[in-house]
């Protein structure tokens, strides 16, 4: 078997480990069924293997480490959707996929099928170190300094069944990027890591700590500016050790690391971490160049060859086909190789459910990845799909192929590219349904020419204060609330997860679903009417302040 492009290739040792994990889980299910394990004991154990109990059924969340899949793995996900679910899967904001209609008794069989393609559900939930996320353009983007995936894989391995950090106060999320343009929301993670080249050729890491969304949104603070590669794991161990010992365990809403960092201050946290490091045997925790090289050698690198006229061919096709041109404008990103381009495939069709894909679409995506991008697929934290290395002169063929299965929506980064949590349609925690309002908004702004005219504008929708739809980080954020049994939505504006991370501020009183859609349409009209040349929604909002937008939103209320 050839080594896949973009992700780590398992060997026999890794596969034996995965089989042992499945056997362990099977034993746990058996002990639950025979009563040796109570439900309270079983729940955390099943969660740390990705199995939730939702409103109507079990949900299995499958890990996609750093968001990268090969076509063989993607096909397997499509087969699982067809055989064990209702013929679709849902890609999540943490670059994973979840299956919403799973039977408990099928889970061991599903895990075995996943293991056939080196996949699993390890640590996709539970109070442990979760699946590590990374830049969706890793190893492809022209603006990248360091490909973060080798270190993302190192973190995946290091955090897998960590003996000390599997029963943390609360879940723990790590994201890593190697670009100056933050595409991982580094400052909204428990730990955010930005890699850049160091003087000796090995990367150095800037580490943020204590960011997060949820009930208490906090922007992460810089803990260290330049951690050397050899000390990366020691530093993470020290950060986690302080958190495990001192994080609150009396109230789950106060248990994330962000609360501890806020309580003692980032300086005190840094001192505590340094005190740990001073006592640790750093040699024992050292990440050696040999270990990094060994893991790097299990990643294949794409052989990027394109005809000299690839760029000219693409330019010509764009001139001839305005629809294609519009898609290229919104759905592509500059590749480090001039003959290639990065294509983002929108899973946000107008009126559709954000992040959902049918088994037929999944199978087609796998075929297209084989044909156009070295069999490599990336899932983004905005619930879309990326083909990272497409030859420019073949981009139009890819676009035509996508059109055949309804995946050629030209709306990446635009108002139709909505992020929404599963909401009350699935989730036991939700106060409101996120999906119907996302569908209504998608339908309201279905015209892609209008979306292009509006420009960069992110809408994020959460069905409750746990904020899984990241509404705090949306340029426009919607939070579902329950008012005497009716679903209302609270509007926030001005959030952003990219560079210059900010938490949105509440615009005014919550509105019912249809009135919310109308209010957003008026917000957008207000922006279109008052923007100056070249301004995005956020630019105009920053210049004018909230007041004109508040007035517009609540005009008729």
């Amino acid at each position, binding site marked *: 078997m050839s080594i896949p492009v973009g992700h780590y290739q398992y060997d026999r040792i890794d596969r034996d*480990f995965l089989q042992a994990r499945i056997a*362990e889980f099977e034993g746990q299910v058996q002990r639950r069924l025979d009563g040796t*394990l109570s439900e309270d004991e079983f729940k955390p154990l099943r969660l740390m293997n990705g199995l939730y109990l939702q409103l109507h059924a079990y949900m299995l969340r499958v890990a996609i480490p750093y968001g990268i899949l090969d076509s063989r793995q993607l096909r397997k996900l499509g087969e699982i959707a067809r055989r064990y679910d209702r013929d679709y899967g849902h890609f999540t904001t943490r670059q994973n996929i979840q299956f919403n209609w799973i039977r408990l008794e099928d889970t061991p069989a599903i895990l075995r099928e996943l293991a056939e393609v080196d996949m699993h559900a390890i640590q996709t939930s539970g109070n442990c170190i979760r699946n590590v996320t990374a830049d969706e353009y890793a190893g492809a983007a022209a603006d990248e300094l360091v490909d973060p995936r080798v270190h993302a894989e190192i973190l995946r*391995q290091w955090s897998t069944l960590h003996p000390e950090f599997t029963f943390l106060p609360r879940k723990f999320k790590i994201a890593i990027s190697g670009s100056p343009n933050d595409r991982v929301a580094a400052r909204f993670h428990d730990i955010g890591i930005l890699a850049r080249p160091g003087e000796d050729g090995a990367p150095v890491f800037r580490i943020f700590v204590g960011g997060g969304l949820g009930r208490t949104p906090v922007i992460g603070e810089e803990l260290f500016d330049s951690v050397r590669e050899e000390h990366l794991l020691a530093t993470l161990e020290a950060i986690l050790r302080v958190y*495990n010992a001192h994080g609150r365990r009396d109230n789950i809403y106060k248990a994330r690391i962000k609360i501890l960092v806020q309580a003692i201050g980032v300086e005190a946290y840094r001192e505590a971490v340094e005190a740990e490091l001073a006592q640790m045997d750093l040699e024992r925790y050292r990440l050696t160049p040999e*270990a990094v090289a*060994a*893991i790097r050698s299990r990643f294949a690198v794409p052989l990027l060859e394109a005809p000299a006229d690839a760029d000219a061919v693409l330019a010509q096709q764009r001139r001839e086909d305005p629809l294609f041109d519009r898609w290229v404008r919104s759905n592509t990103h500059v590749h480090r190789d001039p003959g290639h381009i990065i294509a983002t495939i929108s899973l946000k069709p107008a009126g559709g459910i954000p992040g959902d894909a049918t088994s037929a679409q999944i199978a087609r995506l796998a075929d297209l990845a084989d044909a156009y991008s070295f069999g490599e697929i990336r899932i983004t934290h905005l619930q879309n799909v990326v083909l990272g290395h497409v030859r420019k002169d073949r981009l139009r063929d890819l676009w035509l192929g996508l059109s055949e299965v309804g995946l050629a929506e030209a709306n990446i980064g635009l108002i139709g590219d909505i992020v929404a949590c599963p909401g009350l349609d699935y989730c036991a925690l939700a106060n409101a349904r996120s999906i119907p309002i996302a569908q209504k908004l998608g339908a309201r702004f279905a015209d892609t020419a209008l979306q292009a005219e509006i420009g960069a504008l992110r809408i994020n929708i959460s069905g409750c204060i746990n904020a899984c739809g990241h509404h705090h980080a949306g340029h426009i954020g919607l939070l579902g609330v329950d008012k005497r049994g009716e679903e209302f939505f609270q509007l926030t504006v001005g959030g952003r997860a990219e560079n210059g991370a900010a938490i949105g501020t509440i615009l005014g009183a919550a509105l019912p679903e249809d009135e919310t859609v109308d209010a957003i349409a008026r917000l957008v009209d207000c922006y279109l009417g008052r923007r100056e040349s070249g301004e995005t929604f956020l630019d105009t909002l920053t210049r004018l302040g909230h007041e004109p937008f508040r007035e517009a939103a609540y005009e008729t209320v």
Partner: protein
Amino acid sequence: MKLFELGERTAQVHDVLVTLAELAERDDARAVLLESADDPALLKPYLNRLDLVVLRFPIFRDGRGFTQARELREYLRFSGEIRAEGHILPDQAAFLRRCGVDSVVLPKDGNGDPALWEKQLRQFPVAYQRSVLPERSVGPGLRVEEAP
């Protein structure tokens, strides 16, 4: 009380088990009980006379005991016995062992079956990170197994 040994160190029974607060008053105490909120560094003045540190888990989800054990082994170089008691699960056997715990007080319910603890200790052939145990690399990368 049924004890289960996770490693090579043989579990010892002590008649006198005191709390951290009582330790200064009891010169005869050779065994101390740490609650999960106790700071192991406070044991420093007493380490030479302690044979046993018992870590009490109020509930299996409270993972502070794992860090306490590592601090005892890695920072304080404690070479006596470390024991876990309270609400613990056999599913945690290897984690406890890898953090430096030698023995457990077996739970009185179905989780106290020694066969389950034995099985869990042998569940995984390798680990992906270093622990307090003597270990050697397995293949390239981060993977280790216990050195014989």
